[in-house]
């Protein structure tokens, strides 16, 4: 086990990305993710990489598109309003089957919103990171350690499935400090080959083309269907979640990221009162951990989604539960972080109702 160091979430994430072999970063300043860019601007030149501050979020994601097409491990980071600007480029990456890692350290919205932590981009990340038929892979870390672990793995997932990967953090996880054991530096010569890359054919092969334009409807349909077969393989293989006291729980909270930290405290407090509460924490938001949530829908009396928004992931919980069990919601929004006492009160209320 590597020695633990005390780091901010944003910096741990950035360092882990470097160690995963990321040597190109294109970004634009926005609170509360700026530490990622600042860290990259300091470290990338030290390891022979390139940090470039783009003229806009739009340009940054298109530089990512170009660098990815050229075969590099590449990353950009932003916060909610900036991710909206990047969604055009993310759609093109998905359409051209280009890997890449996009960090969203969420803040409150809509519009300019605020700069306090939020989870109100769940729908954007899992449903609509741009136009068209596509998904991106979404990690939802909950600790500084997981910020590093997800960033490290994101590049492998992106390359394996040729898919954009988002790490959906928030201002709380980005700014807080915790001990973290950093992963080992990947041997750059061991990174996956990319025979599809547009890096010059050297007269040795036909030309490669990175493209998302298909003017024949049947051809575009066929490609979309093939992509969704790949998505199904991801859903089958990559659903991740952490279960905490779920086995005997009457009330199972489903919460990710920062709100899962609060929910865990509330579960402990409920257990002290004799209420059998548990926590199911999605680590991947897409693919959503349907299997685990479905099992909880069979075993528990009620599910409770706790989020830092007006109720977004709760839709996925309801889709999976499919009427088998009541699905409740508790959330704070606009940058307000729910307290364990508030969540406990909701657990108590549900417990009393289900006992009637």
């Amino acid at each position, binding site marked *: 086990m590597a020695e633990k160091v005390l780091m901010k979430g944003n910096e741990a994430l950035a360092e882990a990305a470097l160690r995963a072999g990321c040597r*190109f970063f*294109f970004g634009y300043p926005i609170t509360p993710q700026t530490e990622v860019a600042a860290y990259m601007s300091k470290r990338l030149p030290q390891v022979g990489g*390139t940090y*470039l501050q*783009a*003229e*806009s979020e*739009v*340009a*940054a994601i*298109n*530089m*990512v*598109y*170009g*660098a*990815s*097409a*050229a*075969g*590099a491990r*590449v990353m950009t980071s932003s916060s909610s309003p900036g991710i909206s600007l990047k969604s*055009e*480029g993310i759609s*093109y990456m998905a359409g*051209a089957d280009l890997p890449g890692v996009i960090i969203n350290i969420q803040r409150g919205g809509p519009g300019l919103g605020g700069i306090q932590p939020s989870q109100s981009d769940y729908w954007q990340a899992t449903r609509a990171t741009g136009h068209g038929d596509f998904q991106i892979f979404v990690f939802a870390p909950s600790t500084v350690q997981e910020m590093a672990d997800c960033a490290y793995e994101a590049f492998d997932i992106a390359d394996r499935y040729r898919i954009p990967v988002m790490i959906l953090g928030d201002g709380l996880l980005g700014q807080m400090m915790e001990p973290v054991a950093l992963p080992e530096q990947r041997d750059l010569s061991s990174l996956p080959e990319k025979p599809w890359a*547009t*890096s*010059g*054919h*050297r*007269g*040795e092969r036909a*030309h*490669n*083309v*990175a*493209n*998302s*334009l298909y003017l024949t409807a049947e051809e575009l349909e066929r490609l979309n269907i093939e992509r969704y077969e790949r998505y199904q393989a991801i859903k089958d293989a990559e659903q991740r979640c952490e279960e905490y006291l779920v086995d005997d729980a009457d009330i199972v909270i489903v919460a990710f990221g920062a709100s899962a930290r609060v929910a865990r405290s509330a579960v402990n407090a409920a257990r002290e009162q004799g209420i059998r509460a548990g926590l199911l924490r999605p680590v991947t938001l897409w693919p959503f951990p349907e299997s685990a949530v479905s099992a909880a829908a069979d075993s528990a009396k009620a599910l409770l989604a706790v989020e830092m928004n007006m109720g977004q992931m709760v839709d996925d919980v309801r889709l999976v539960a499919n009427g088998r069990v009541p699905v409740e919601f508790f959330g704070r929004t606009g940058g307000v972080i729910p307290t364990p006492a508030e969540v406990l009160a909701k657990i108590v209320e549900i417990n009393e109702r289900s006992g009637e």
Partner: protein
Amino acid sequence: MSEATAEKLVYERPHALLPVVTNYCPGCPHGIVIRLVAEVLDELGVEGEAVGVAPVGCAVMAYDFFGCDMIEAAHGRAPAVATGVKRVHPGNVVFAYQGDGDLASIGMAETVHAATRGENITVIFINNAIYGMTGGQMAPTSLPNQVTQTSPYGRDVDTAGYPVRVAELLSSLDGVAYIERVTVDKPASVRKAKKAIRKAFETQIAGRGYSMVEVVSTCPTNWGMTPQDSFEWMRENMLPYYPLGVKKDVVADGFENAAEAALARAAGCPIAQPKGAE
């Protein structure tokens, strides 16, 4: 020696141009310029190192025409995409091929910033003063009083403002090594255009900085003219507004590259001097 072997081959398809049918309208100059770029890639022997970026617009399918590796960019983003490629592979020859709507309207930010960063890329810019692919709307380079689908009473500069002279605009930027405006209306112009395109690529290969060739062009289909009349209209109206010629050439100005020229321009600014300079 037989008569057959004495024949001299004077014209063939460039290797960097794939044997495909293009999507261009009859009389459209795109085909000429695409061919010139391919000829230059051949002559410089860089097809294998080249990565081209196609725009959104009439040249959107250019990735099917060039034999080098190609990337299709989102509308206006070609310079950002080219930047990403060039930063990963500085030894590659990276070019963007863009029209006026793509380069000077939706992609103006990417255009200006790639140029001012001195991205060592080459941009081929086709300026025909109209949106061709979407059926003839007003472009950022449409002339005052020019009638288009979305300026049916003629471009009113009081409400629609003035056209952008891209070559002059970008020439003011320090990252730029070479910019020339050319046209392809007759054989002599085509030869001149090819020389400029070749020089732009040589500028990149020598690592001198950003290079761009603006090609003043036509759109017979959407202008509603024959190809011959289009060139006549272009000579009469466009060339006075968009004068041909070299707009910036740091080598002709006596510098090795754009960086040296920029340094000379900032001679009076202490912080802009090289680190460690006295």
